């Protein structure tokens, strides 16, 4: 378009003001796109997890309170006694796919703070339950065979330069027991799973705890992980378990893995609400910033606009040119903000370790990126509308008399 050159010059007329406007829209656009994407990535993970029909049994008092390991066999018995047959069984040998799932929360080597998750599980069935995680057959065999074995996620291995055969000491923080593990395998999985976690044999931890004179903390499964035979069987199983344990000191809360993750997301849910509210406020502020910047620009150019009108430019053309300038500036901000968010997602691996596995993955969904850019264009359009209309509406004669 032939007016573009002129519009671009106008946009660059007051570089500081334009850059400040672009900058504020870029910063807000970046935060909005990144936040929305983070939440959407978490939501997507929960959605995916639903397909695996997994159930997690925890104490009704919360996941910080462990359930006893004895519950595992009670659940198997219950499942059969009630004729539910809800627990999936391994095709090869009919072994029920149920495992303790215990958060260890220790420190790796001499780290002051280890931000990756460590779980005690049953190596025999764990990878049959988490089928999306893959471990080479020989490493899996080694994991099952060796009591002090640990398998680490691909990204954790990369971060800490861990290879098979390495020592993997974990100093107990919650448990008064230090694990002296050896890496026997490195597992992999989809990008959005926590590949910065590690799994070791729950029995190894438990025997260690028992061997200590006090035995404090032993025989606790933490939580119990179950793979169900079908989605339809999840509710009756959960109900049966919770009923059976109700009114005892081991009362449970059984729920799908998706709901379990949801608990952790609960506090971010509130955050999400605040951020959404904040987003509306920020969008409003940006509208004003953009509008005021354009209004100032146009006020300075009152006489010029009058000259253009005298020369024969019509109202809609002036309106269009001013709006185009506003949209250009705001859109540039949106583009930079969204671009930065994309850059962040590309380099998320550098930040992910700090999120303790809660946000292992940041993907900017195309619709969020588009929304970021479209939103900024809209801010330009709406914010620029009033100043544009004003500029176009000043009578030519008055504009020409104005001495600026």
């Amino acid at each position, binding site marked *: 378009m*032939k*007016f573009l*050159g*002129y519009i671009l*010059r*106008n946009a*660059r*007329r007051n570089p500081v003001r334009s850059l400040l406007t672009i900058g504020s829209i870029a910063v807000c656009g970046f935060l909005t796109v990144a936040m929305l994407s983070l939440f959407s990535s978490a939501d997507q993970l929960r959605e995916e997890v639903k397909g695996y029909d997994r159930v997690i049994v925890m104490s009704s008092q919360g996941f910080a309170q462990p359930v006893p390991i004895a519950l595992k066999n009670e659940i198997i018995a219950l499942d059969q006694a009630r004729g539910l047959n809800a627990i999936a069984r391994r095709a090869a040998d009919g072994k029920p796919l149920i495992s303790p799932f215990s958060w260890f929360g220790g420190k790796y080597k001499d780290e002051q703070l280890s931000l990756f998750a460590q779980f005690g599980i049953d190596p025999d069935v764990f990878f049959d339950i988490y089928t999306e995680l893959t471990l080479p057959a020989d490493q899996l065999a080694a994991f099952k065979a060796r009591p002090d074995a640990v398998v680490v996620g691909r990204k954790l291995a990369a971060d800490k330069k861990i290879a098979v055969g390495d020592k993997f000491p974990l100093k107990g923080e919650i448990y008064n027991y230090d694990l002296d593990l050896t890496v026997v395998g490195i597992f992999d999985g989809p990008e959005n799973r926590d590949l910065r976690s590690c799994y070791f044999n729950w029995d190894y931890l438990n025997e260690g705890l028992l061997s200590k004179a006090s035995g404090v903390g032993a025989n606790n499964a933490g939580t119990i992980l179950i793979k169900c035979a079908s989605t339809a069987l999840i509710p009756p199983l959960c109900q049966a378990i919770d009923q059976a344990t109700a009114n005892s000191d081991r009362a449970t809360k059984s729920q799908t893995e998706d709901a379990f993750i949801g608990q952790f997301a609960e506090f971010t849910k509130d955050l999400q609400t605040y951020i959404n509210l904040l987003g509306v406020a920020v969008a409003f502020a940006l509208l004003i910033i953009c509008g005021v910047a354009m209004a100032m620009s146009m006020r300075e150019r009152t*006489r*010029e606009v009058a*000259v*253009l*009108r*005298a*020369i*024969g*430019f*019509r*109202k809609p*053309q002036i309106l269009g040119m001013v709006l185009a300038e506003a949209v250009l500036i705001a859109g540039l901000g949106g583009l930079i903000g969204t671009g930065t968010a994309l850059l962040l997602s590309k380099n998320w691996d550098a930040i992910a370790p700090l999120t303790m596995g809660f946000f292992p993955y940041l993907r900017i969904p195309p619709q969020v990126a588009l929304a970021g850019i479209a939103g900024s264009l809209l801010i330009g359009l709406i914010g620029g509308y009033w100043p544009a209309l004003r500029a176009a509406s000043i*009578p*030519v*004669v008055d504009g*020409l008399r104005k001495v600026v």
Partner: protein
Amino acid sequence: MGRPPAIILRQVSKEYRRDQIRIPVLSRLDLTVAEGEFLALMGPSGSGKTTLLNLIAGLDRPTSGEIIVHDLDLTRLSDSQISRWRSDHVGFIFQTYNLIPVLRADENVELPLLLTKLSRRERRQRARTALRIVGLEGREDHYPRQLSGGQEQRVAIARAIVTDPYLLVADEPTGDLDRQSAEEILNLMEQLNREFEKTIVMVTHDPNAAKRATRILHLDKGQLVDDVTRAEPSPPKVAESAASGDPPYVADLDTARRQEARL
């Protein structure tokens, strides 16, 4: 009358309104300007010269009366029609040049052509030609701040003539210029009037500038009180023209011919 009238004002009145108070500026004014005429409008400050010029150029509308320019009744045109008419047929020259500071000289001149269907190439070419006519060849890529006042006014004149309008309106075009630059601008306007046969209406406070016109009108208290057709044309400023590098031309001959025609 040898030439058809370019501008006819019939019983034109203009008053401004400010908070219920009516400020009459022009009252029942009649005026005829012939095609190819160079009219100078003089008068005390606040007498309504700019107001009259704005009416003739279609920038403002009269409170009552008719304004006919080249057989077109401006008072009957819609806002957008009158905008289009201005872009096609009127060139504007202002006291303060009013160039767009962020555009180069050639871009400033090209600006009115953006409203036409001309190709980019044609636009560039016309802008260059207009700049050549005003003697600014080689200054195409200068920004207004890199030019002197006189040069800026020439760019403004190039912008005014680039669409080849039949009417040029100038509101104190030399008001901000020193003697020398003013003379150059006036030479240029004279040239546009003679060689390119533009009808020019120029508001000025400067009697020396007014002398360059073919006719001088005085506006006072809303009336055209004095319609002086010059009995004697001003002596041609051949020497000055030569000094400033403009081509000399036979001023008196041309003027004489026109005066004859009018009589």
